[in-house]
């Protein structure tokens, strides 16, 4: 059990090895366990109201009832989580100096940040030459893309930062009534945070939930799964 926790801890810490987005394993584990104990407690309370002799039921029947009730509560919680997500405000990002200047001129509050490419975000491409035609194709550096036929040859491997932004500064447009502790959605994240990691590259997370602490947004890095894309 200790080894499993150690493995998960190392894996997540590695995945989010970024000052602005450190994965807090202990707090996350505590949060998961707290949630589970809370659901068990609520399930027990609900069943106590329905069954006077709940504590005297045969163990198997008790476990089965508790399991069904916990599952019901979990589904209700999930729906509530979804409802809460839909209520979050979205913070716009200003990507050009002109947009930032205009916003300031119009009296808006902004949080200006440097656009700093992270050295942790890199992709690697293979330049593969077809010896017969001379044509060069560019593919991500994956096992499947490595040539297995003498006709093709890797002539170059190129590792690079793959994103381009119009300016070296960007700013979050802050609503006048933004409250300390408010959770929001940053629809276009300025900070470079690793969102997905593969053998052929790491990709930045393009949007995230965050909490406003009065001076900056604390990005919530929990549980994003960029490998599944919606849209």
């Amino acid at each position, binding site marked *: 059990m200790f080894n499993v926790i150690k493995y998960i801890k190392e894996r997540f810490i590695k995945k989010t090895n970024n000052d602005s987005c450190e994965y807090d394993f202990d707090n996350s584990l505590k949060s998961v366990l707290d949630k589970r104990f809370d659901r068990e407690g609520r399930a027990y309370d609900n069943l106590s109201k329905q069954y006077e002799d709940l504590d005297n039921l045969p163990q198997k029947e008790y476990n089965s009832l508790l399991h069904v009730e916990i599952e019901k509560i979990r589904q209700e919680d999930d729906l509530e989580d*979804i409802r809460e997500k839909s209520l979050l405000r979205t913070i716009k990002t200003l990507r050009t100096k002109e947009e930032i200047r205009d916003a300031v001129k119009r009296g808006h509050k902004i949080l200006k940040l440097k656009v700093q490419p992270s050295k942790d975000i890199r992709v690697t491409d293979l330049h593969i030459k077809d010896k017969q035609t001379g044509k060069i194709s*560019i593919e991500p550096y994956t096992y499947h893309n490595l040539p297995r036929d003498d006709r093709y040859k890797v002539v170059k491997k190129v590792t690079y930062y793959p*994103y381009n932004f119009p300016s070296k500064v960007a700013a979050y447009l802050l609503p006048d009534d933004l409250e300390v502790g408010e959770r929001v*959605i940053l629809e276009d994240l300025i900070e470079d945070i690793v969102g*997905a990691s593969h053998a052929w590259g790491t990709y930045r997370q393009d949007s995230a939930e965050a909490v406003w602490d009065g001076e900056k947004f604390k990005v919530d890095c929990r549980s994003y799964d960029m490998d*599944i*894309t*919606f*849209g």
Partner: protein
Amino acid sequence: MKFNPITNTLYTDDNKLIKKMYCPYPSLKWNDLSSLDGSIDRFCDICESNVVETKEMSDESLLALLQKDPETCLKLDWNQENVRIDHHV
């Protein structure tokens, strides 16, 4: 089909644009979506729309679907078998 994770854009194998993917809820997960009876697609309770599972779809059927309704929401797993990652498409 091909997916460019830098631009979040989905294309057919012959580079026709299928859709620029965008979801306004970054922490949304597949398991957050409600199952639909008799379908591998799911339902998003926030947007109140179906989310189409693309893992068994061909380029042609996806293009036809998006041409009919460009707002159709898609789910794409970067590791699914009918998708190739491409940084330059």
